[in-house]
């Protein structure tokens, strides 16, 4: 019979970020604009 000794069996499971997180990252990427002025970079987040 199978005997699992691992304390945390969940440890072996594969994980993946949810579609929600991916969508958020895509929205963040689309909203982020980098503007350069006088050798200084400004981050603009246009929502």
């Amino acid at each position, binding site marked *: 019979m199978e005997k699992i000794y691992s304390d945390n069996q*969940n440890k072996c499971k594969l994980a*993946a970020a949810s579609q929600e997180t991916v969508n958020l990252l895509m929205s963040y990427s689309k909203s982020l604009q980098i503007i350069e002025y006088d050798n200084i970079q400004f981050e603009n987040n246009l929502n």
Partner: protein
Amino acid sequence: MELQKDDSVLVKDYINGNEKSLEILINRHNQRISSFIYSKVLDRDVTEDIFQDTFIKVIRTLKKGSYSEEGKFLPWVMRIAHNLVIDHFRRNKRMPKFEGNEDFNIFSVIGDDKLNVEKQLIKDQIDSDLNKLIDELPEDQKEVLLMRIYKDMSFKEISENTGVSINTALGRMRYALINLRKIIEKNNIVLTN
């Protein structure tokens, strides 16, 4: 069948403004990066958070043009994720997060002593009923009862304020309670939570 674009091509496309390339990159490496983070933190929610922070750093670096294609894309992202995992443990060391297990639940010791919505509604109803009952009392008894119960005044203070002796104030309080009980019994009013 469409040929799979190399990571470096997708990165270049993304830097040139093709947002779709980033989505392909995220989906392509999602499982590997998430599994790596999860193997260290062993918490699904924390994994999501660190994955998100990792790609926010990736996006900012790529958009700022600070990324140099010296190595490969995936090892670079893994390095960022690894650093964020270390940050997470450092932060947790300073402010440890306590999680209960099957044997012990922290919420069995720390309780919210506030009433729940239902009990609060019942309490409000009882308070309002009681106010109506007190309004039915004769003025002198009502005055003493309000001072004693709601204003938490001593009988000495009540007697000074109303200009009657302490004994009279005590008597009025006694009659006020007797009368309240009479009204409650007569009308079968239930005043329990």
